[in-house]
Structures are given as C-alpha cells and as structure tokens.
C-alpha cells in the first residue's frame, strides 16, 4: 500500500475546514499534492506532529484536527500517545503512515520493523478506537472512523517510496505558519498572531 493512495482516500473524506497537521519528510509534499489548503500545517519535526495536533485540538474543540504522523516521528515522543489519551480530545484523529523506516535520512529500520505495534501502544494508553490498515481496501474502510465522533488512531502500513517532487517545490514552513495562522484568524474570528503596531514603551 502506498502512502499517496491512502492520502487520496483520506482527502475524499476530509472536510474543507478540517485542520491537518503533518510531519516532516515526504508526507507534507504528498499531502500538499492531494489536498492543497490553507488549513494544512506542514512540517512538524521529529516527535512534534502529534503534540502540536493535540494542542491545536484542545484549543479548538469544535474543529476536527487530523495529524498525519509517521512511525519514526511518533516513536521519538511515544509518550504523546499517553498524553493524548489523558486529555482525549474528541476532535482529534491521528493517522500514522508506518513504513517501518526512517526513510528520509536513508531508510534505516524503525522499531516497528522489529515488532513494535503502535496500535497496541495506543490501546494500552487508552485510545480504544485504534486500528491497523494494511491494504487500501482496509484503509478505505477504517478511515470511516475519521468521519465519526471521537478520538481515533489509525496506523497505515505503507511501502517506502514517494512521489516525484518538482525540483523547485517550495516548502517554507515559516511562510506556512503565517498562512495557517491567518486562516485560523479568518475562520475562527479570533486573534492568533496578535501582532502589534505600537509598544507599551512608547504609548502614552
């Protein structure tokens, strides 16, 4: 099963205002190609995809937040599953594309290649709606949980490999920060950046 094919299925059930947080590496490029949107927050570095999605979900309990994490990224902060289960945000969905490898830096196997079962970890933490999908048909069926209420955790067992990137595809994450923050300001009608034009040091 290819990650890009899973993403095409996911994009089909993703609402326009769903907020999607991705990890680094190939995932943001692939997700951008199937669902380009201001509602995407790309490029969470190792260990930070699920924590950032958790914080976003807690801050906006009425918005659905989808984390597109990876096995290597999640393993660095595996305790984020415990914290997610602790707070149980019903608007958060975590999808892990598990290719059993640190693909971007060369393909060294991750612990999931040696038997670590992330779904069992999630269940052990208390995320009862935790599933594995190994075929695209299976993924298409399990992804229906995204549409239902409640926290869920889905591990998609995918092959290594990715789509061909355009040579000059830009992925400036700080630029994306401002796009995403402005989008939240517009759609939630609340300040995010809170930039100022005057300083208390000079105000009378």
């Amino acid at each position, binding site marked *: 099963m290819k990650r890009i094919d899973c993403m095409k299925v996911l994009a089909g059930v993703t609402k326009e205002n769903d907020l999607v947080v991705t990890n680094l590496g190939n995932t943001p490029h692939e997700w951008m190609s199937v669902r380009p949107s201001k509602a995407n927050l790309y490029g969470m570095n190792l260990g930070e995809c699920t924590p950032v999605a958790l914080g976003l979900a807690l801050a906006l309990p009425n918005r659905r937040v989808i984390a597109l994490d990876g096995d290597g990224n999640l393993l660095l902060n595996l305790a984020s599953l415990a914290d997610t289960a602790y707070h149980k945000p019903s608007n958060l969905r975590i999808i892990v594309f598990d290719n059993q490898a640190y693909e971007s830096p060369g393909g060294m196997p991750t612990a999931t290649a040696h038997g670590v079962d992330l779904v069992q970890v999630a269940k052990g933490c208390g995320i009862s709606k935790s599933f594995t999908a190994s075929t695209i048909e299976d993924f298409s069926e399990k992804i229906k949980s995204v549409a239902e209420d409640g926290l869920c955790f889905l591990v998609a067992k995918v092959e290594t490999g990715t789509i061909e990137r355009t040579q000059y595809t830009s992925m400036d994450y*700080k630029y994306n920060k401002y796009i995403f923050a402005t989008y939240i300001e517009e759609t939630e009608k609340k300040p995010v950046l809170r930039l100022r034009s005057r300083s208390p040091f000079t105000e009378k």
Partner: protein
Amino acid sequence: MKAEASEAIVRGLKSAGVDLVAILPDHGFDRVQKRIADDPAFTFVPVSNEGIGVGVCAGAFFGGKSPALMIPTSGLLVATWPLASLHNLWNIPLLLLIPYRGDVGDAQPVMRTYNFTTEPILRDLQIPYVTVSEVSKIEGAIKDAVTSSFAWQNAICILFTGETLR
C-alpha cells in the same frame, strides 16, 4: 514557593491573557500548578515530557490560545529540541516559566548543574529571559513577557529565584 508568589503568578497570567498552561510537575511550582489546575480560567494540560509540552503550546498558539509552559529547571534540557526546531525556526510565541533551581542560594547539590546550563541554553536558543527574585515584580514581568512574546513572535522565559521560591 509561597502562596503570595503563587497568587502573583496567577494574577500575572490572567492579566496578560494567558489561557492555556502546560506543565510538568515541579517542586518549585507545586502550589501554583495546583492553583492553576483548579482555575477554570485556564486550559490545564499536564504532559509527560517537556518536549511534548512545547509542541502542545505551539499547537495551542495556532488555535488562538495564549499558552504558557511551566517546567522544572532540568526540563529545559528536555525541551531544547522542539524549542529549536519549532519555536526558534518558525518564530512561535511562548511564555516559558521556570523556577531557577541552581541559582546562587540554592543549597541542593543536585541543582548545581543547572547553574551552568540554564542561562547559556536560553541564550543559545535566542530566548530572551528575565530573572525575577521579588514577589512584587512577578505580575509585571509576566505581562511584559507575554507582550514581547507576541510582538516579537518569539519565546520569552521568566526565571524565578530568591524570595519568589522561598
């Protein structure tokens, strides 16, 4: 930390508009952390390691919250990775509150190391910081830190020491 210092922190957080606090338990902050946990003005987010707390605060910022992270002095070492790869790289605001264990006057031998790590790490991460040693200065320091944090789109740290910790 005395009750008056805890109350000053809570007043400062409220007057600065902080509405989400992620924490890892710390002896220096135990009273104020319990106080915040019981206060409905705050979304209270205990986490299992400081790196997760940094990420949660970043996500909360994007969701329109004004977040603060209260962590032990030692926890700053754990938090360095996301503070560098998220907050420094992307310029994300954050109020970082740390009891300055290991400051001169601390009699715990195990805290000595943090005298050598805390301020250099903050400087290396380009996180401006102020050291507050008087209870009367707490509220204003928090308000100033949050103001600059959003204006500069940068994390700002307050180190608590002296009478604020006693």
